[in-house]
């Protein structure tokens, strides 16, 4: 006891220093984890965006796909498949169009109507009950979470993790410069450009103690692109 009392000040200082170092270590690990999650979400956002970008660039016109129906009517049934959307507010829920079955295959120039086509649908599927909170200083925002899935001829061929918070498709038609959101259910007849935006949330670290609250101001990753459709002219 005498020894402890003699060195009480030193012991208190050592304890405080150890505590500070421990907190710094926790912060460092948290920061590294957030950086890794950020990179992963960024990669996931780009993956689905590049796929969508390629599909839109290969979008076929109504005439092109009806030409194909005349060759092989069993490929397409149901009608209204050339380009359609459904939306809720400013969020696109479904975006369907006819595109090349193989996004990277060259078109047979001599017989363009022989190129194999598919109906592709990008669907935003709500994760039941799932939402994410975003902390912006003292303000907390809650966002519903979705999966964005790619469906080819009715079969799900791929999907994102359920971290999509926003998906939007906009159209521009010949003679009109501005893009309009997908409030309509069919694409304009003289569609010239399609624009899309995807936003995904980053899952934060589970908060156990007050010090573990994320101090990051960046909890989303987004990508947007505009694709010209010269063959729709």
């Amino acid at each position, binding site marked *: 006891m005498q020894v402890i009392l003699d060195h009480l000040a030193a012991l208190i200082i050592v304890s405080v220093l150890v505590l500070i170092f421990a907190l710094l270590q926790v912060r460092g690990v948290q920061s590294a984890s957030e950086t890794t999650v950020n990179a992963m979400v960024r990669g996931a956002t780009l993956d689905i965006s590049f796929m969508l970008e390629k599909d839109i660039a290969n979008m076929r016109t109504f005439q092109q796909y009806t030409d194909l129906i005349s060759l092989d009517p069993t490929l397409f049934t149901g009608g209204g498949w050339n380009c359609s959307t459904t939306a809720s507010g400013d969020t696109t829920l479904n975006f369907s169009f006819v595109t090349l079955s193989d996004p990277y295959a060259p078109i047979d120039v001599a017989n363009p109507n022989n190129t194999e086509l598919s109906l592709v649908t990008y669907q935003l599927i709500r994760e039941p009950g799932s939402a994410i909170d975003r902390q912006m200083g003292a303000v907390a925002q809650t966002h519903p979470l979705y999966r964005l899935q790619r469906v080819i001829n009715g079969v799900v061929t791929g999907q994102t993790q359920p971290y999509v918070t*926003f998906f939007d498709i906009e159209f521009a038609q010949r003679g009109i410069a501005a893009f309009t959101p997908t409030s309509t259910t069919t694409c304009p007849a003289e569609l*010239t450009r399609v624009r899309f935006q995807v936003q995904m949330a980053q899952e934060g670290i589970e908060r156990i103690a007050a010090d573990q609250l994320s101090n990051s101001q960046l909890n989303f990753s*987004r990508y947007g692109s505009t694709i010209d459709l010269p063959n729709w002219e």
Partner: protein
Amino acid sequence: MQQTLLALGALLIVTTISMNQQRSIFMLQRTAYVRELEAAASDYAQMRLSEVASRAFDEARLTMTTLNTDVSDLTVSASFGVEGPEAAGNEGDFDDIDDFHGYIDSTITHTLSDETYRLRESFTVEYVDPTSPGTTPAAGFKSLIKVVILTVETQEAIGSGYVRIIERRSIAVSDYV
């Protein structure tokens, strides 16, 4: 006395380490933030150039429906910008590509969902000399190709000036119908 000096030395070391750690975390976040800003600026530039390119090639081609290879009636580069009743700051009045020459908009808030990116855009329009692309042609030169150069800048921090050129992109537009 000796113990006090040792304690002060220890606190100094901890403070230094702590500040470096905070700086490291800040730099990581800043890098990620700038990357998102760059993506937003790139997306914005692509959209804007697409919109600009959808306008008429020249004031003299507004009502023309067939290809005209005569360049004599095209606007000289010194006169690029708004013409006649068009207001310089009102994009709604712009009807051809070179109306955007010199146009600057500092009020852009590129919004996605509840995200807002503050950007500033500025346009330059030039004729392209097909025999010497990439160089600025001499005054009075005209051709059937124009290049629209869009520069997008952003703020490095809220409230700071627009100092960071984050995207410079151009699109060549030919005069065909």
